């Protein structure tokens, strides 16, 4: 049993990096997604086209390639831009560029979810709000947004779990600084030492599974609160969906 606890302990510092990547990118991605979804729905053709293009590009290409591309692209601006600004150490740090790419990625996926929810907001409620003489801002704050977030929350939970899983490939694409290693790199290095694929990868999987369950639990609590006006609050189950 002690060997198992030792094995778990080996991964404990590593999971912090995966959690960091997820926590650093989810809030920003959320905010960006709201604007992108509104942009895609916008009547202004330019804004709509740009938002659509961004969402399509980042949903239509692999995150792995986005990492490589954005890292080498950022690197190519180092001498002309980041260095003179004194930002070089920061901009090219995996702990910055990792969340940056993840944010762009999750913003696109989340925006698509929010856009779908936005279209599903009952027309009648919006019209009623207009009839009350609400400004567009008020309409959004009081009517559209509460509807949207309730409709989107289960799918968004799913997206957050996917994003957390996506943090597993960060260090396959970015350089590793010192001892900053995530769960996947740790598992791979341990495997390369003693060949016990079943042990190391299972423990890594266990960590991912555990955090996924925690995410479901926390987002389930939020969902309950969002739906507290309903007679029987629907419960969320641990069920990563195929939709992404």
């Amino acid at each position, binding site marked *: 049993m002690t060997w198992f606890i030792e094995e778990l302990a080996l991964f404990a510092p590593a999971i912090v990096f995966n959690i960091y990547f997820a926590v650093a990118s989810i809030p920003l991605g959320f905010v960006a997604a709201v604007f992108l979804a509104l942009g895609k729905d916008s009547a202004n053709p330019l804004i709509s086209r740009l938002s659509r293009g961004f969402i399509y590009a980042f949903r239509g290409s692999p995150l792995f390639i986005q990492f*490589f591309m954005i890292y080498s692209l950022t690197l190519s601006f180092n001498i002309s831009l980041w260095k003179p600004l004194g930002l070089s150490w920061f901009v090219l740090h995996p702990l910055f560029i990792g969340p940056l790419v993840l944010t762009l990625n999750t913003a696109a996926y989340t925006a698509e979810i929010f856009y779908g929810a936005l279209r599903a907001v009952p027309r009648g409620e919006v019209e009623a709000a207009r009839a009350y003489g609400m400004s567009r801002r008020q309409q959004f704050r009081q009517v559209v947004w509460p509807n949207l977030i309730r409709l989107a929350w289960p799918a968004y939970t799913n997206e957050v779990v996917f994003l957390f899983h996506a943090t597993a490939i960060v260090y396959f694409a970015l350089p590793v600084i010192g001892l900053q290693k995530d769960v996947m790199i740790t598992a791979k290095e341990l495997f390369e030492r003693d060949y016990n694929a079943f042990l190391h990868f299972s423990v890594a999987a266990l960590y991912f599974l555990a955090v996924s369950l925690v995410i479901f639990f926390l987002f389930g609590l939020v969902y309950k609160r969002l739906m507290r006006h309903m007679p029987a609050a629907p419960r969320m189950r641990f069920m990563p969906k195929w939709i992404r």
Partner: protein
Amino acid sequence: MSDNLAFWLSYLTNGKHLTWYASFQFTIFAALAGGMLAVIFGLAGATLKNSRFFALRLIGSTYSSIVRGVPDVLFFLFFPLAFEQAVEWFMASQVCTPETLAAQSATWPPCKEANWFLGTPEYLILASVSLGLVYGAFATNVIHGAMRSVPQGQLEAARAYGMSATQVLWRVHIRQMWVYALPGLSNVWMLIVKATSLLSLLQIADIVLWADRLGAPNYLSAVGLVHDDWRWRYYLVLFVFYILVTFASEKAFGALMNRAGRGILSEARS
């Protein structure tokens, strides 16, 4: 200008680039084979989940929830390694003798005769199988849901015609199920296409590995054209390639759904 054009043309058609273009076959193979296997595993998983026996139902739902609960890349790395070790373990139980076991100094495999050499073709097949297994878990859910969406009346009608349970399953239930499953399967297909970018992690010289090698800065004329870091240009090509594949897939699935949805109430098409 024409000199320039000729130079770039010959640069972009040198052997290294041709190998890069040729390596697209690995990606395409893995996507198609992985997609097909995903549907097969999905059907198997959904059948298990629909089973009358609790044990089989448990296997079906454990498979689909465990695999979906861990990152695809983890399973993608783990499965080929585990499969190789399992085959070698099986071989060891067949071919190893006490002498060869004693002669083996490395920790794995148990004896030299049980060793399994893995080259690109084997890895490619293993990669496709692991893509199939991972996304088969997603397809399980899609197909499970779709099978429950088939109107009960149709199944009853089939039974009333005197079809056996197997006939109902294969001739009516599964055939009618596709219409409901297609939108979900299209999503799963997109996930598989994007996951093919991970092939280089299994030592397959795929498009991503070549993009890195071609774009890496080069200072030695013996190696090829001397240039700075050009990687982002090559990755941009891959970025666009995948977007185009997504676009084409969407169109193809759209056409497929239209075809499959003929004669069916519009509620099935979404």
